[in-house]
């Protein structure tokens, strides 16, 4: 509302609207373009002759008879068995979100309700842990995982992702729990509840907005991860992102690039839907950390 339209001169107004419009195009156009192009053949999507081919699909019509072809999708999902990767991703995301929320809520709640000095140090340690590049940690896992035969399977990856996710989850839930008045669980304790009963009966019913927001970010971390999943999963257990990366290795043969394009679009679709439904939560989550900072 601040610098709102009141007596904004016309020139400035045009400038600011067109600036936002340019940004919108920058942000959205690549996705639209790739979605459109994923239904074309490679010679149209990468058109040396004429860029309008990518829009009209001249070669696609010549080869397939129609302007749209689902060959890329068929190749990726059926021939290259992308559906297996999609199922693996679903399993990984589900378990990562559930586990990290369960242990994260307990930890974040404890941090927000304990007034002792060590909570500060724990939060600081979590901040440092968050800053460490995942690949640096992965190089520490490989040798023990090989020796104990834990490498390559989904449960290992899930636990690792949960752990890597914890620092962020703790920070976020900590700040959410601090907004819930302490009087609530204090009065429950006065009435004779133990701390855990107070948590279960009083806090759990009111914590869901914060937990859902944190869960969204846990989901995004698990869904988007490439560093951990590409290193810790065997080829047959791959999730979607490393699977897409493995398509790239074989780009030489014609059609394979379109498999990658189709699978990229397929993997982006759930994220679109997520943003559509949870835009408010994502925005509030991004800013929740900032309030503390």
């Amino acid at each position, binding site marked *: *509302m*601040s*610098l709102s*339209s009141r007596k904004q001169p016309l020139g400035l*107004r045009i400038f600011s*609207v067109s600036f936002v419009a340019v*940004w919108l195009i920058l*942000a959205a156009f690549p*996705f639209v373009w*790739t979605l459109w192009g994923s239904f074309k053949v490679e010679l149209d999507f*990468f058109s*040396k002759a004429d*860029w309008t081919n990518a829009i009209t699909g001249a070669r696609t019509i010549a080869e397939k008879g129609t302007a749209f072809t689902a060959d890329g999708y068929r190749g990726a999902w059926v021939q290259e068995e992308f559906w297996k990767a999609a199922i693996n991703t679903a399993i990984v995301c589900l378990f990562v979100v559930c586990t990290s929320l*369960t*242990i*994260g809520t*307990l930890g974040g709640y*404890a941090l927000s*309700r304990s007034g*002792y000095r060590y909570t*500060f140090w724990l939060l*600081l340690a*979590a901040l*440092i*842990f*968050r800053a*460490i*590049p*995942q*690949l*640096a940690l*992965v*190089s*520490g*896992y*490989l*040798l*023990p995982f090989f020796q104990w035969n834990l490498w390559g399977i989904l449960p290992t990856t899930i636990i690792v992702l949960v*752990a890597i996710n*914890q620092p962020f*989850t703790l920070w976020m839930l900590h700040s959410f729990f601090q907004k819930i008045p302490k009087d609530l669980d204090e009065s429950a304790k006065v009435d004779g509840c133990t*701390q855990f009963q107070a*948590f279960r009966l009083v806090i759990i019913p009111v914590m869901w907005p914060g937990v859902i927001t944190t869960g969204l970010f846990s989901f995004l971390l698990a869904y*988007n991860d*490439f*560093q951990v999943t590409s290193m810790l999963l065997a080829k047959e257990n791959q999730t979607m*992102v490393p699977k897409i990366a493995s398509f*790239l290795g074989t780009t030489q043969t014609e059609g394979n690039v379109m498999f*990658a394009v189709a699978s*990229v679009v397929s993997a*982006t679709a759930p*994220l*679109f839907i997520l943003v559509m439904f949870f*835009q408010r939560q*994502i*925005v509030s989550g*991004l*800013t929740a950390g*900032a309030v503390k*900072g």
Partner: protein
Amino acid sequence: MKHKTFFWFFLPTALAMLLFIALPLVSIVTQSLYTAHEQVFKTVENCGPFGCKQETTIDQEATAALRDEKPMGKWAGAQIYMDRGHLAVNEVRAAWRSSDSWGAFLSQVSNFPFYSALAFTLTFMFVVTPLCIILGFAIAVGVNSLHRHLKGLVIFFSLLPMIVTPLIGSLILFWMIDSRGILGSGIQWLFDDPNLSLKASTGLTWIMLMVYGVWHSAPFAFVVFYAGLQTLPQDTLESAQIDGATRWQQIRYVVIPHLMPLVTFVALIQMMDNFRVFEPIVGFNASAHATSLSWIIFNDLGGETRQLSAAAATSVLTVIGVAILLSPVLVRTWRDFNEKT
């Protein structure tokens, strides 16, 4: 909350972080001090009808026994850190002696993988972080003056570059700037040079990666600043207007000071994230021209020969880098905390 209750509440998450974040850190330090065993050779005399020959073969059993006995490998001390793939101490010293100017010295040093990766990582971090803060702020101010109904839509599309998987986001842009893609051929047409390829030159590759970095992380800065603008103190702004402050002065003396804590927050998060830049290098297939510290680790770990010790040494150096980066923040937080209590 009592210590004991706190302990039980915090135990699961503490265990997860100890086992999978703290212990791996110990593990990379120890691993980086050992190298893989060399294979054990044995010499056998083969006597056939044409006389005896000495043959040297790999003693598989002895090698396996050695590996089982000491799975960590052979003690190497700081040797791995000093070798050509990491700090390249001897080579750098030689370069220092042989080169007569700073420029020549730096260009020699940047040939070593660790230093070239460090150069790209730091450049990426220090270029992308301020640019995305500036762009994010500009978008936030622009969106804030839009009509109410448009805001939601704009925010939806603005979130996309940030939400999308970094590897996928960079692939989408990579295909567009391919010399046969729409942006690539557009740039060729613009500069009237049919052979222009963004992938061929180091400078253009760096710029391309940084443009991707800004595209990817500006939405985060935008959302945080936009939320900050909603809490702008109206009375301060109004008094500034009454005092005759121009629009620019209002932004300079009211809005920016109000958002300053958020700028620190965004800068901190962005520096942490940009320091571990990795996925765009894979997505843009740019490793010939630009490597980052994370990419070196990835490269060492992957492939047929998993060079665990080399990767561990780079990891330790990376973690030290993170510690140096974070140290001002940590010192400040510590001081604030001590003042408070």
